[in-house]
């Protein structure tokens, strides 16, 4: 029997899904024309599934900084910060991030996935307790598995359930760390952070917020949900990524905790992997400067998000609970979702197809992520296409179409 035999059921599902053309798991962008447009199979395609919230992947200043660093410092660091040394720019980026979040300390990781893996497996250890939102991202679950703390879950975004679970742990020794996300990546819903922070204060625990999808998106200064909810003082650790609003790759954790730096020599996903190349650090620093100084980006993003969310909701499609730069449409079954996704792509619109069990409600999702760089016309075209395809596939009754005012 093959070593891969255990995947036979998965393979069956995968083969069935990838028999449709184009294969939803192997989309290739032959060309990237801008941060919101590419070429797929010879067609100009609107990119509405890239997490490129501020559109900074093509920002000329970010590119220029990156190119300069590349020429001056080379293509890679070829080693880990701990074993092979840091470049000055690693330090500088950590200082920039600490300052941006108004915190004492910052550690930069090679991806956001590794930031969660590292922090969750190291901050809590044997005899400690990790209390996760049930709908947490894979990187949070994997970090929990890598460490030795006891892991329990509370119902998604349910502060009362969190309270009950902390109450049960009241007299149990060990540190307690609660982990939530700012914006949840599948439905775009926000954590009830004020209520969660109150439970945390009352019961005595540490609180970590993953602001992967909310940094640069929420808050007066773009510091994320903790800022928007006014509870930054209650949030002990913020983790995040450079791969979304900052348009590059990498991850980080910021904190005010005394003695934080000891983690640099305790945290394996930080120590035993190569550090980010200087060109990535350079564009990320520039993107952070832009994010911090250009509030108009955030305004444009929320206007675009609101427009798409309202447009799809008004068509009668089943969208998530609130408008945010992630807008997902739930469909009845997998086959329909694949056909819907395909028809959109044929029509020149790319977004993400998310299938159970990766989705929180067991329904397949068409997941859009909106960018400040999308034009109004692109958003309206997306709504129009959704309407056409939904009618064609019988998801919406005949005669439904995008309101004329929207298309104008």
């Amino acid at each position, binding site marked *: 029997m093959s070593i891969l035999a255990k995947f036979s059921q998965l393979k069956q599902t995968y083969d069935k899904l990838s028999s449709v053309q184009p294969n939803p798991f192997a989309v290739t962008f032959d060309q990237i024309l801008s941060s919101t447009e590419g070429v797929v199979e010879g067609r100009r395609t609107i990119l509405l599934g890239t997490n490129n919230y501020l559109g900074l992947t093509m920002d000329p200043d970010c590119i220029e900084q990156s190119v300069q660093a590349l020429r001056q410092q080379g293509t890679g660091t070829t080693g880990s910060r701990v074993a092979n040394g840091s470049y000055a720019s690693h330090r500088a980026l950590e200082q920039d991030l600490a300052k941006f979040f108004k915190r004492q300390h910052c550690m930069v990781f090679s991806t956001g996935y590794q930031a969660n893996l590292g922090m969750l497996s190291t901050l809590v250890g044997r005899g400690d307790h990790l209390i996760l939102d049930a709908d947490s991202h894979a990187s949070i679950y994997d970090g929990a598995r890598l460490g030795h703390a006891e*892991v329990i879950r509370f119902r998604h975004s349910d502060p009362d359930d969190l309270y*009950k679970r902390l109450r*049960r*742990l009241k007299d149990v020794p060990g540190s307690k760390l609660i982990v939530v996300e700012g914006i949840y990546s599948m439905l775009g819903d926000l954590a009830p952070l004020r209520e969660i922070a109150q439970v945390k204060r009352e019961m005595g625990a540490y609180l970590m917020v993953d602001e992967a999808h909310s940094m640069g998106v929420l808050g007066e200064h773009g510091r994320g949900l903790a800022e928007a909810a006014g509870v930054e003082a209650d949030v002990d650790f913020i983790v995040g990524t450079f791969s979304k609003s900052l348009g590059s790759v990498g991850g980080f954790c910021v904190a005010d905790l005394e003695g934080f730096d000891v983690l640099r020599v305790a945290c394996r996903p930080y120590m035993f992997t190569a550090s980010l190349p200087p060109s990535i650090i350079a564009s990320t620093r520039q993107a952070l400067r832009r994010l911090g100084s250009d509030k108009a980006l955030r305004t444009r993003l929320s206007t675009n998000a609101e427009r798409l969310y309202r447009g799809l909701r008004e068509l009668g499609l089943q969208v998530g609970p609130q408008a945010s730069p992630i807008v997902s449409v739930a469909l009845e079954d997998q086959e329909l979702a694949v056909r819907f996704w395909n028809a959109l792509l044929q029509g020149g619109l790319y977004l993400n197809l998310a299938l159970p069990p990766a989705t929180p409600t067991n329904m397949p999702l068409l997941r859009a992520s909106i960018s400040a760089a999308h034009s109004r016309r692109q958003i309206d075209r997306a709504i129009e296409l959704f309407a056409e395809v939904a009618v064609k596939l019988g998801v919406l009754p005949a005669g439904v179409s995008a309101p004329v005012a929207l298309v104008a």
Partner: protein
Amino acid sequence: MDSLAIMNFMLEIEDRFDISIPLDRAADIATVDDLVSAVESLVKQEKA
């Protein structure tokens, strides 16, 4: 049962008995007997 149904079932059990079943304990549960003994020992622990 799919994984979402299993998760909801576990959350129900936790509510019903006022316990939290840690993920590593949950991973070891394969039969109804396993579940019963895990719940019993957690309930006992809770009362202690």
